[in-house]
């Protein structure tokens, strides 16, 4: 993984995933280490993303690294019309590693082709967000003890949600069963179902929460956004059908954990937060350890 950019979850093999998760576990036990002391890391956020940026910056700070960068593009040379290639080539001169968030899809792959230092994609539009996927894997492994043979429920916007697509691709290496719960117009796209068919992985589609959730090991909930509906009436009809409430969890497995990429709006009732199955805030913390592991491996210091 040394010097190799992380652009898409498909760039890494299951062995790479395990290596990252093992190292993340070590960082969780001992988070404050001066491993990045002699490194400068560029954090280029061409669009705001508070959570991802703070998670990376927290990871860098805990490892004693220094950060240069910006948290939105309006105050930079990009607003003067500089090309992405030029910005990346320049920042490559100032840093050992670039973390980049950009609204345009494919921008991170392109940046990795023009940069002289490795790039970590922190989200390129609706395309990829691989560190989110790896922290999801870490959360699954940590709570279930394994990634193998799990029953994964994906809930909410399965059509546009990049996190559920990446998670589906990554988990497909570990013989899962999938259950999809979504409104009709936000169903899992055909190309992903086709992919699962080809791999012989079982999946079931549902339009609402039923007793089936008692089989879940992981319930991964995403937001059903109003903007996704052309007809506001349709949204009003379905919006309450995808809200997870504490009373619905009665018959679920004790090991079951609820994950959410955050920010949450109302798709998980706040009364779920006190339930031991709620895991989304720990999941956010796991993001710091996972990102510490990814950066250390790419910089070759672990």
């Amino acid at each position, binding site marked *: 993984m040394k010097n190799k950019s992380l652009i*898409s979850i498909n760039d890494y093999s299951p062995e790479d995933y395990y290596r990252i998760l093992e190292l993340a576990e070590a960082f969780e036990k001992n988070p404050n280490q001066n491993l990045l002391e002699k490194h400068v890391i560029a954090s280029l956020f061409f669009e705001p993303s508070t959570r991802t940026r703070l998670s990376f910056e927290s990871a860098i700070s805990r490892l004693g690294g220094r950060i240069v960068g910006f948290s939105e593009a309006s105050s930079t040379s990009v607003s003067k019309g500089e*090309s*992405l*290639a030029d910005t990346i080539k320049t920042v490559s001169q100032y840093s050992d590693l670039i973390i980049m968030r950009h*609204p*345009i*899809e*494919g*921008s991170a*792959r*392109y940046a990795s082709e023009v940069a002289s230092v490795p790039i970590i994609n922190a989200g*390129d*539009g*609706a*395309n*990829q967000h691989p560190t989110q996927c790896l922290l999801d894997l870490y959360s699954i492994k940590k709570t279930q003890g394994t990634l193998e043979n799990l029953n994964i429920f994906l809930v909410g916007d399965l059509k546009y949600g990049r996190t559920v697509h990446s998670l589906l691709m990554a988990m497909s290496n570990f013989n899962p069963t999938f259950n999809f719960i979504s409104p009709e117009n936000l169903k899992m796209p055909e*190309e992903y179902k086709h992919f699962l068919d080809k791999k012989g992985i079982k999946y079931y589609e549902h339009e609402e929460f039923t007793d089936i959730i008692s089989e879940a090991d992981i319930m991964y909930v995403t937001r059903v956004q109003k903007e996704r509906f052309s007809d506001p009436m349709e949204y009003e009809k379905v919006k309450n059908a995808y809200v997870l409430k504490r009373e619905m969890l009665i018959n679920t497995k004790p090991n079951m954990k609820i994950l959410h990429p955050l920010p949450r709006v109302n798709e998980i009732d706040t009364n779920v937060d006190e339930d031991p199955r709620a895991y989304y805030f720990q999941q956010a913390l796991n993001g710091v350890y996972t990102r510490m592991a990814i950066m250390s491996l790419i910089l070759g210091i672990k």
Partner: protein
Amino acid sequence: MEKRKELTVSAIENGTVIDHIPADSLFKVISTMQIETMDTTITIGNNLDSNRLGKKGIVKISDKYPSIEDMNKIALIAPTARINIIKDYKVSNKQKVEIPDNIVGMFKCMNPKCITNNEKMKTKFAVVEKNGNLQLKCHYCEKHTDQEHFETI
């Protein structure tokens, strides 16, 4: 009555004949091959009767031979096409075009939010579906562009 066999488009001495182009793809082939910039004799026919295609197009280019890249391009726009290399009025080499695995700088990505539509750079695709409806997967944004949406650059 004896059926007269006559060439609707006259023969060439040396060069390339691209035959069996679907009639509605002829002008795409012409623009992709940049035939308008060539200075040798070019003969173009369209809507000719074809047993296989109904209506077909044909292009005859004197004294020029296509590169592998050109043939790849033709394969994508007109998969039924046949390329005949002509030497001394005879077909010296007859080729069925083959669809390549990767394509650089030929089509636009149909995703308006793709970096290739927002920065001065070449597009790159992997051909992910070769049978039936051709599908290209963008190397950058990872979205698929299908045959219906092919737009040459």
